[in-house]
């Protein structure tokens, strides 16, 4: 992947569509599938990921000249882990219920390949400001995939949206939509739609 001269807002923009981390690079799938059965949880997860991404890209970028190359991976992981611990403590204090429901997936932001991919692939070689923009872009790109999927899965599966009843109660709930397999199908369909749109645009 070309991570060379992209600077400033171009770094942010390309992450939203052309190089969207989930659709284009198939990264960060674990949480994309696991938390998308409830819109509320998805939103919290997205905000957590954006925070981690921006802060760790910034920190790694600041330290990029002092990190020895041989141990850079483990240092990056430790920086990311520190911010994830911060998120976990904040969630436990202010949103204990969501923190409980998300369970291990908050901790798993550490091994979310998007974060590692951005710190290793971009922040290690670029200035702090560009890295922050790149991090914001990747985080929003991730949210742009997760939120629509959650917005489809929750209403169809539970008849609710953000915890509120939106579909009449006599609607037969599609239990399928909130359990594991539909996560795979929903994401596959989303990838299909986006790629079809992309190739349609290229043909024109």
């Amino acid at each position, binding site marked *: 992947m070309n991570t060379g001269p992209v600077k400033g807002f171009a770094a942010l923009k390309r992450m939203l569509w052309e190089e969207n981390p989930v659709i284009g690079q198939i990264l960060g799938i674990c949480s994309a599938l696991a938390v998308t059965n409830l819109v509320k949880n998805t939103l919290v997860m997205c905000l957590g990921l954006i925070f981690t991404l921006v802060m760790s890209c910034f920190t790694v970028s600041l330290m990029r000249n002092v990190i020895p190359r041989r141990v850079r991976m483990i240092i990056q992981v430790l920086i990311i882990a520190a911010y994830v611990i911060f998120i976990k403590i904040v969630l436990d204090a202010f949103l204990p219920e969501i923190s409980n429901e998300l369970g291990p997936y908050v*901790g798993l932001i*550490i091994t979310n390949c998007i974060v590692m991919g951005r710190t290793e692939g971009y922040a290690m070689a670029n200035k702090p400001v560009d890295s922050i923009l790149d991090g914001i872009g990747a985080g929003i790109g991730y949210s742009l995939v997760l939120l629509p999927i959650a917005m489809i899965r929750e209403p169809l599966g539970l008849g609710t949206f953000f915890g509120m009843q939106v579909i009449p109660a006599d609607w037969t709930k599609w239990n399928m939509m909130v359990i594991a397999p539909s996560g795979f*199908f929903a994401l*596959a369909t989303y990838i299909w739609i986006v790629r079809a749109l992309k190739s349609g645009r290229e043909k024109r």
Partner: protein
Amino acid sequence: MDIQNVHPFIIFFAAITTNNILLTNFLGMCSFLAVSKDLKSSLGLGAAVIFVSTFTAPINWLVYHKLLVPYELEYLQYIAFIVVIAAFVQIIEMVIERVSTLLYLALGIFLPLITVNCAILGCALFLVIRQYTFMQSIAYGLGAGTGWALAIAALAGIRARMEKKSKVIPELEGAGIALVITGIIAMAFIGFSGIVRIN
């Protein structure tokens, strides 16, 4: 039934089937989708995951219950687990390189991938959340690894056949169709849910 009284064998069996770490918890998806194109490397990575998760699960159990809990440092669990896993993988890599060139060639290239495999870290986090005992954590580590390896081997086999025999819509090629197949495998695994039911 209290989770502490469940026989480790049941935990092992549940971790492979009903609580399959990949198909129900979606962990380790990245390497799952990237590597499953090829059956041979899938088996290699699967073996490496089984090996690492079987050993890191009990080590992480000891670190959490004997080190972090007595000193009330539970909030450091993420860093502790990631360091344990990274250190274990590094040590194993060096040992294997010394002891057996054959094994190193088979597993060696997959080991670095494993440090950032969320299945291994997820394993450690689940055994804290579900409050497993020491023996149960060994069984869970072994079961989770086996379940993961089973799923990747199944997907790799199906993908290899599909490449030869069938046409896929161009937009769905690669990751898209892999996700659909995984979804169908996951549906099949729901059939196991009548056998064991634990969390």
